[in-house]
């Protein structure tokens, strides 16, 4: 069984147009104990889902342009008017009005630090990050929330100044296109495909 011609999707006239294969079928295999008694079967599954980014699409698109977008409540009547959010929130969690987009790239370059972190050798299936993974939760001056990401260079510490780097050469259009490095890292040291 091959997995050639894996499915791709386009949107035309507001509808998904799919081409190729979105699933591949494989035979079941029996599960037996030492005596040969049948206990069950394997159920192989290989399928591709379609996922809409909706109002968050600008965030994922702009990582490939080396931009970090957040949002801000622009409703003067809201009690938390002016609060800035990243992760990008499409709507204000209090007044539910549509938030205004704000470019946080410069703020992140100047005022980002590690709120907390962890280092792990363990990963789940489908992981693509190199182990050990250094998770960092990054806080920004004047921002209400604390963004999770991964550190590509160095060892994390609480309070450490970090700057964002972006997968601009071969973007995946996922959160993986954003990573962090210690402030002062030289461009020559960045991982493949990443730029400041």
């Amino acid at each position, binding site marked *: 069984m091959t997995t050639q011609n894996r499915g791709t999707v386009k949107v035309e006239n507001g509808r998904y147009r799919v081409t190729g294969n979105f699933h591949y079928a494989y035979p079941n295999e029996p*599960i037996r*104990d030492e005596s040969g008694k049948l*206990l*069950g079967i394997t*159920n192989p*599954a290989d399928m591709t889902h379609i*996922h809409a*980014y909706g109002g*968050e699409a600008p965030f*994922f698109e702009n990582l490939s342009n080396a931009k970090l977008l957040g949002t801000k409540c622009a409703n003067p009547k809201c*009690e*938390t008017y002016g*609060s800035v*959010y990243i*992760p990008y*929130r499409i709507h204000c*969690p*209090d007044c539910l009005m549509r938030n205004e987009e704000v470019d946080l790239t410069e703020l992140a370059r100047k005022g980002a630090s590690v*709120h*907390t*972190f*962890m*280092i*792990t*050798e*363990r*990963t*789940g*299936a*489908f*992981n*693509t*990050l190199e182990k050990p*993974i250094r*998770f960092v*939760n990054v806080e920004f001056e004047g921002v*209400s*929330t*604390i*963004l*999770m*990401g*991964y550190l590509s260079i160095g060892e994390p510490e*609480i309070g450490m100044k970090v700057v964002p780097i972006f997968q601009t050469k071969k973007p995946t259009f*996922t*959160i*993986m296109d954003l990573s962090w490095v210690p402030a002062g890292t030289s461009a020559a040291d960045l991982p493949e495909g990443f730029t400041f």
Partner: protein
Amino acid sequence: MIKFSKQQLKIPQMSKPVYLVTGGMSKFDRAIPEKRTEELVIDSFLEAAEFINKSPEELKQYIHSCYYGHFADHFGDQLLGEAVIHDRLGLDPLGNVGIKTGGATGGSTIWEAYKAVASGYSDTALAMGWERMDEVPTDEGNHYIASAADKDWETPLGHIYTGYYAVMAQKYWQVFGKEEESFRRTLAEIAVKNKGYARMNPHAQSPMKITVEDVLNSPIVAHPLRALDCCLMSVGASCVILADEKTAYEMTDNPLLLYSSAGSHTLRVADRRDMAIPLLPNESPDQYKDLGVRFPGGDRYPGFTGFLAARMAAYYAYGMAGIVDPTEDLDLVELHDAFTISDIQTYEDIGIRPYGEGRSYVESGDCYHTNPFTGQPGKLPANLSGGLIGCMHAVGATGIMQVIEVAQHIWGRWSEMHADEAKWKRFNRVKPDDWTDLQVKGAKRGLAISHAGVGSHVTATVLVHPDHQLKGRG
């Protein structure tokens, strides 16, 4: 939201009191290849029926609606698995619904059944939970669990939930634990305690007689957490029957009052905005003014160190049951010890200790069945079942198992349900020679906390012997 209205802070007022009538559990294990889920569910139902000397048919006659806790369809690869179970229990055509709130699924299932009885919709309701986490290899299981984090913003980062959780542990470790070796040893003591209590529980998956050094020498998962600091992945089922007063006393002469509440917080810890600490009845407004001075970095609430969902669930439940100080008013607790460090965080969220001082609950010996320093009964024993670290974490069943374990103490029947040689044998387990009776003598009131992941959902279930209700009950 970071501010609450009067309406949101209302202590729930139920239309009628709700009683716990009985409960039962299957065996719990890492894998049970010889049984289908429905067989485990029926095992737990049979134990619940037998506990009140009823046949399964007799017990079923009382049931009017059913609440099924099963967290991850992915694990069983069966959508609408609740309908399968409902049929196999022979409960069609009664109304039933599936409940999913991650690790809090068991507690939430009880919450739903509770409201059904309290409202008068049903005189008797079944809350049944199960999980089977043995049908994918561990790394794929980790991917599925990580899929309960935000799929766009978190899951792609390693597909490992521990990664999203351990950042909280790291912050607590540095701010409130001050990276002290003594604190690290206190964490290890929790694992030693819970694995040790699991040795007295025939249902338990991971009984171990270990030392603090064993925990400290176990493989690192994510500093400062090691393998023995972490909860289990499990297979199994558990259920309870809830009823109104009249029906409860028809079914048994000794039902327990039950109160259930729920709180929540953002799925991504990232989104938790700084706010004032909501206070519990045993706390004062000034008490946390200098928290950031005593614990530098600890002034952001809940930040990455507190679980607001647990605090809100406790706030509602304490109000409902009339609890002012959990350590004084309760006789035992079952907490969601997903990790030793989150166990300590929870002591603070639910007011067993003030924020920043959770470790003293362990270090005082209060959390033990028998205080190791005084030889006297512990003030508020925790997780005598073995908890998630020693007994099991069959997600949908966990919160229900905790409630059953607390209830058996209040019923004075813990020993009967854990000493039985036949049960040890049926589960193919060896009862230890030094098996110890952990019955909490004279237990009248207890609490179970069911908790999801990084704290997106938490429920609090309080059990009270009807002769020992607290004043000021709502």
